[in-house]
């Protein structure tokens, strides 16, 4: 995907590692034979998926928004979803726990007490939609409607000051959200020891 690659490049440029990424991710493609597609099956085991069943499990969402279900929501609507379905574990403003802290932590990543939250750490809003849709509420996962997922995501983003209360999140707008830590990730440079001394 050209856009995904561009995005990775942008991440990399942000931290001066463009070269690493440019040689890193795309290079993976050249490491196996392009002739694979032409091959016919060797063992003849397995059957074609039933399209309806495949659709049920094909739930992932990529940063460009592919995989988002039709629907929409706002933080204003999300307050109700959040209060009923999320608050007991994540607290009224997403900062109280008892489970994961969802909001706050802005500017804390480079300090001795970093707080990694949706607002301070997560690079993509699509990840939030995907994770709420696949895994939350923790004790009753996959029980929210798509509209409720959009609204819950909007509310968590609102608690982080990333979207406004009335901003409408849907398949088109959610992938466009610029997360504060979008450029915060670098590729693995290890081995990083022994320390090379000049």
């Amino acid at each position, binding site marked *: 995907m050209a856009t995904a690659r561009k995005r990775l490049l942008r991440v990399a440029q942000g931290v001066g590692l463009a070269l690493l990424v440019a040689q890193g991710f795309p290079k993976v493609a050249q490491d196996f034979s392009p002739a694979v597609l032409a091959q016919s*099956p060797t063992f003849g*085991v397995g059957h074609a998926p039933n399209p309806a069943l495949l659709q049920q499990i094909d739930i992932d969402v990529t940063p460009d928004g592919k995989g988002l279900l039709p629907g929409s929501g706002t933080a204003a609507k999300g307050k109700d979803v959040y209060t009923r379905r999320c608050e007991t574990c994540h607290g009224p403003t997403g900062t109280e726990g008892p489970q994961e802290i969802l909001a706050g932590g802005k500017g804390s*990543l480079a300090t001795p007490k970093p707080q*990694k939250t949706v607002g301070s750490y997560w690079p993509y809003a*699509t990840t939030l939609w995907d994770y709420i849709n696949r895994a939350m509420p*923790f004790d009753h996962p996959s029980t929210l409607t798509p509209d409720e997922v959009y609204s819950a995501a909007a509310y968590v983003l609102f608690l982080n000051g990333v979207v406004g209360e009335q901003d409408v999140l849907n398949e088109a707008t959610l992938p466009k959200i610029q997360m504060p830590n979008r450029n*915060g990730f670098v590729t693995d440079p290890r081995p990083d020891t022994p320390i090379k001394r000049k």
Partner: protein
Amino acid sequence: MQNERSRSRRWFLGLGAAWSAALVACQSKTASPPPAEPRALGAAVSPYGSRSKFEKTARYFNQNTKVPLEEASSRTPLHETYGIITPSSLHFERHHSGVPELDPATHTLTIHGLVGRPLVFSVDELKQLPSKSRIHFIECSGNSGGEWRGGSTESDVQRIHGLTSCSEWTGVPVSTLLRECGVDPKATWVLAEGADASKHDRSIPMKKMMDDAMVVYGQNGEPLRPEQGYPLRLLLPGWEGNSNVKWLRRLKVMNEPAMSREETSKYTDLMPDGSARQFTFELEAKSIITRPSGGDTLVAGAFCELTGIAWTGRGTIVSVEITTDAGATWAKAELQTPVLPIAHTRFRFPWKWDGKDTVMASRCTDSTGYTQPPLTELITVRGMNSQYHNNGIQAWKVASDGKITNGNRA
């Protein structure tokens, strides 16, 4: 659990004879005389074995936590296991949403996305394909994570390092399955997803999938244990535990990573400048003295075998060195053969403690020439916030009364 553990530890010390000769010597305990000659018949044959009722070794997990125990880990008793294979019942656990109960008669693996022929495989169909068995460790990237911020002097090898285990795995190479589906040459990543409640998912570079990844159904000669992904899990030799997706239900061939929560919010390493390293898959070379270790007591002048395990995600362990004088000198330990790639490697070192306080530690070198660094060196480069991927040297402090404690911050 805490209580049960210290009870079993006390029992373990008191009944040294049942355990290794080394510790008997270290502890100088005399075993009580054996009971009178048996005159009664023993138990009859049985369909499925279990361990002796005298054995109490158990996985450790913290029960005093506000985090649900379905979103938790349990740790292998590294000090109370031998050789290089971890018994399946003591393999460490890390689940994000509990252990699902999956019926192998209905569970399937779907491969789709950028392929010519999307396919669904039943567990039986996978078992019909050409199989491979490989002995590999799996280590959680969060193993030893508490040490970044100092750890606890009270802690022992199980609590600090118990998120690594080693098994013989049997299954099908992923490359066989991908060829069967015909991969689009544009494809660069494969999303692997589990059938657990939270549908745990990770994006894996295509190169790894074609190199040595497997879909496994066997563990130590039996079907996988439910805690290890029954009936199917992904095995990525040498790569961080959570990428070896358990309860595998789906592989989606893609041309970008999905950027799932488990590869952004979690399992990324925060650096001192606030940037975070992502896709840090490979586990670097690591070794630990497992016995005697934190919580044990040495006896001066008695023979004591130091033993432990070493492993690397990048190849084979070529040497393990031991210091018993706080790093002043290092001597080679003996490696138990066979020494296998990407597997726990058992090492041994004969020793007599002279009764003076000291620090003992092991460090290993792998086939790439990489040597396990001191934890302080990792902290110099990565700071104290990175949380994952600590492969630094574990120091054990020996006090003049023989008591061994965690010496990483001594």
